[in-house]
């Protein structure tokens, strides 16, 4: 366990003793164990004192502390004044995740209120990457807003509001939430990433966001924000030309939005996630023109279009009638054979397909067509569906080794004259070039 193993790059430093006034500045790419090794092995100079932990320079302490979970760091800070000072160095307070849970509604521990007070008092101007994880109780969401309102000296780069269970932000009085959020928007001025799914954010607050952060905003996730209108999100797309990732619900999607995102001034979009959710059965959904999608593809040829569908079977009318550049497609409820047929016809960029349920008629034709026409398909998941073993083998043969994810429930595969269940996994493994088995569920 010689130090000299690491010394090839920095030979002279390894033997240097750490002086009391901490002038040494260790290389930042050493791991904590390297630094400890250095301290443990004094040089052969005679008359040297043994290493003194209290002399460990702040920079090394800082580096070590960054590896410690918060609780351990807090314990370490109680050791001596020097370590306490290191604990409060700004670099350690750039990222923080506030965990707000009530014992009545969650099994998880919460960030200690005293710590929260300390952070607001001493470190709010150090915070840059902040997230709030709240449970399903209104108190937790309120506590989050409370903290947000106090972050006046903050210049946040990222902010995430995450509900770990039921969306409790939606239960707050809207104005209360908006005013807290606006504090951050106004003070930050360089927000790059914002995750506000399942919150009561509205059009005016988005305007405030845009007014202060349009140059820096790169990521915006706002699925299920019912108070936002298509005009509200359009304002964001129009002004925030650096926006690369966007997540929203289908009702906010419009031709104008897609055109705004593909305008010349706009950077290439990387990721667009759309949730299509049915509020009431028989809901009518608007259509997006093919020309709008074409414009998107022309402008951002590599972008991922991720669509999650949670609809009743008969609500798919407006979808997949024309070519659509979707890459990741997820059907959360039952989807009909006919719609899957249209998917095969109209989704040439498809990379990943997940079908939770279909029905009791085999999807043989539809799968073969998808194998034919979706040349980029590399992942597929089938739940409550039926496919004959022969058609499935054919499908896998056509896709070949590009299928890196093949997650098929065992009940999906219907044995036929060519293949039994025991035989099929050999055939499929052969064509995939790796050992494959269907997914199983306990039959007990």
């Amino acid at each position, binding site marked *: 366990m010689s130090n000299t193993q690491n010394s090839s790059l920095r030979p002279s430093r390894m033997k240097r003793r750490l002086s009391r006034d901490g002038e040494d500045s260790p290389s930042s790419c050493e791991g904590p164990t390297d630094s400890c090794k250095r301290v443990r092995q004094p040089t052969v100079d005679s008359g040297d004192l043994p290493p003194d932990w209290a002399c460990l320079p702040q920079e090394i302490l800082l580096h070590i502390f960054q590896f410690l979970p918060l609780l351990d760091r807090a314990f370490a800070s109680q050791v001596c004044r020097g370590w306490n000072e290191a604990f409060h160095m700004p670099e350690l307070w750039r990222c923080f995740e506030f965990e707000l849970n009530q014992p*009545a*509604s*969650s*099994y*998880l521990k919460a960030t200690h209120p005293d710590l929260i007070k300390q952070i607001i008092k001493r470190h709010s101007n150090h915070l840059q990457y902040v997230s709030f*994880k709240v*449970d*399903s109780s209104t108190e937790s969401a309120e506590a989050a807003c409370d903290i947000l309102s106090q972050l006046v000296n903050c210049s946040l780069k990222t902010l995430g509001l*995450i*509900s*770990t*269970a*039921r*969306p409790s932000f939606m239960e707050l009085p809207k104005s209360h939430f908006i005013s807290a959020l606006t504090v951050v928007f106004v003070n930050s001025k360089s927000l790059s990433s914002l995750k506000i*799914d*399942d919150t009561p954010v509205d059009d005016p607050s988005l305007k405030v966001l845009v007014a202060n952060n349009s140059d820096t905003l790169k990521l915006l996730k706002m*699925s*299920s924000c019912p108070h936002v209108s298509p005009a509200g999100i359009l304002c964001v797309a129009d002004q925030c030309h650096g926006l690369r990732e966007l997540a929203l619900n289908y009702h906010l999607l419009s031709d104008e939005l897609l055109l705004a995102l593909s305008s010349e001034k706009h950077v290439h979009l990387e990721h667009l996630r759309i*949730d299509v*959710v*049915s*509020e009431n*059965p028989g809901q009518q959904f608007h259509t997006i023109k093919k020309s709008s999608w074409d414009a998107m593809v022309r402008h951002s040829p590599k972008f*991922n279009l*991720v669509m*999650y569908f*949670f*609809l009743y079977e008969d609500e798919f009318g407006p979808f997949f009638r024309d070519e659509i550049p979707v890459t*990741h497609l*997820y059907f*959360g*409820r*039952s989807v009909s054979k006919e719609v899957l047929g249209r998917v095969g016809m109209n989704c040439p960029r498809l990379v*990943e397909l*997940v079908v*939770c*349920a279909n*029905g*009791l008629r085999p999807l043989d034709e539809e799968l073969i067509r998808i194998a034919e026409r979706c040349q980029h398909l590399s*992942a597929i*998941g089938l*739940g*409550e569906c039926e496919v004959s073993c022969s058609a499935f083998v054919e499908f896998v043969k056509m896709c070949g080794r590009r299928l890196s*994810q093949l*997650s098929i*429930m065992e*009940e999906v595969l219907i*044995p036929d004259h060519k293949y*039994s*269940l*025991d035989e099929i996994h050999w055939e499929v493994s052969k064509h995939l070039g790796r050992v494959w*088995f269907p*997914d*199983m*569920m*306990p*039959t*007990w």
Partner: protein
Amino acid sequence: MVVNSVHWFRKGLRLHDNPALQEALNGAETVRCVYILDPWFAGSANVGVNRWRFLLESLEDLDTSLRKLNSRLFVVRGQPTDVFPRLFKEWNVTRLTFEYDSEPYGKERDAAIIKMAQEYGVETAVRNTHTLYNPDRIIEMNNHSPPLTFKRFQAIVNRLELPRKPLPTISQEQMARCQTKISENHDERYGVPSLEELGFKTHGDSSHVWKGGETEALERLNKHLDRKAWVANFERPRITAQSLFASPTGLSPYLRFGCLSCRVFYYNLWELYMKLRRSSSPPLSLFGQLLWREFFYTAGTNNPNFDHMEGNPICVQIPWDHNPEALAKWAEGRTGFPWIDAIMTQLRQEGWIHHLARHAVACFLTRGDLWISWESGMKVFEELLLDADWSVNAGSWMWLSCSAFFQQFFHCYCPVGFGRRTDPSGDYIRRYIPKLKDYPNRYIFEPWNAPESVQKAANCIVGVDYPKPMINHAENSRLNIERMKQVYQQLSHYRGLSE
């Protein structure tokens, strides 16, 4: 030296294929079969009336069978650690036998009893017959850790020796060599208790579906094999509406209590397959049900925290919601989703539901809709489900909630669609939720969508006579997929769908 044996029944409630019991009889002067039961404990234990009834019927059956062999079952009230010292002295016991229990709690309890027996000079003989294989052997062959995927488990089992052949049932001759003195007041002291004695009020409703006991188990086994032979088909049966109802050939509760030996079941299936298919050896898939049971027993045997999320090394830590009100609605079949409510009603009334029904309600409670911890669901099943034992119940719940065993979480069962596809006739709903019986098939799985006129005609108004749906499934499944993703994307081993 005089050998006085005591055979301790816990599971393994049968006289056939019972090597431990055979060992008790071996060269013994007297043999007494005991079952230890604490009636005071009955009320507080998480055990429902159906499970107690099944157990008591199984004990009665044992008693009846033993009577035919000039012996009796001794049901001793109390706790093992208190009861055994007394019995050792009173009966001059020199040998104690019982069937091996691979569950962590069982192993601990038995280690203490074995130690105590040694102190009393009582030799102990333990035999492994509750599972086909020895779980420790499987673990050893898997690099000293239990297989955590079913395929891996099957691969290991394939390399093992076949399970031991079952022993025949205890014979008259064997018993005749040992005598048991039965006292006049045996029924008073050691009789099988009634449900009333355990604190249950039974309103004389004995129209229950699953009758406990070895006799019933063996009859069912024959019917089960007859049916398989008649169908001549060993493929996994397609589920029909009929499958949802309790089957007269269902065997899972009997395997759980040990009224039926799993080896007897195994070899009977084997022989039948060989006879009908005339082939060399059956595929592993023939024993699907039995192997799942083995899988969970093996996974749990060295893990005392197997039935918890916290402190369980194989369980993903998921931020489940804590919501007693929602949990109660689910447990009591008041969710407003007829498919879920019918299943939970059947479970409470009869003590058994089809495995797909289990998937449906487990998914609904956990990752599908309510986002409540699988531990809560497991406890409800423990109370109500006849075939739920510690390992299989905990393991299945972890599996179905995608908390362990590397499950793909994209597959979500719809509480309306899945029911409709499984039972298009709606008869299952009508049987267990009679209030909805006049609803037309179109609306019976989603009565809240029926127009007022239909609801009035069916004499069942949603929100008044039957609850409104407690959640919006589309919204909740969307939310929950996101939650699962958040958890899984932080796991280094995650390689899955749903980006």
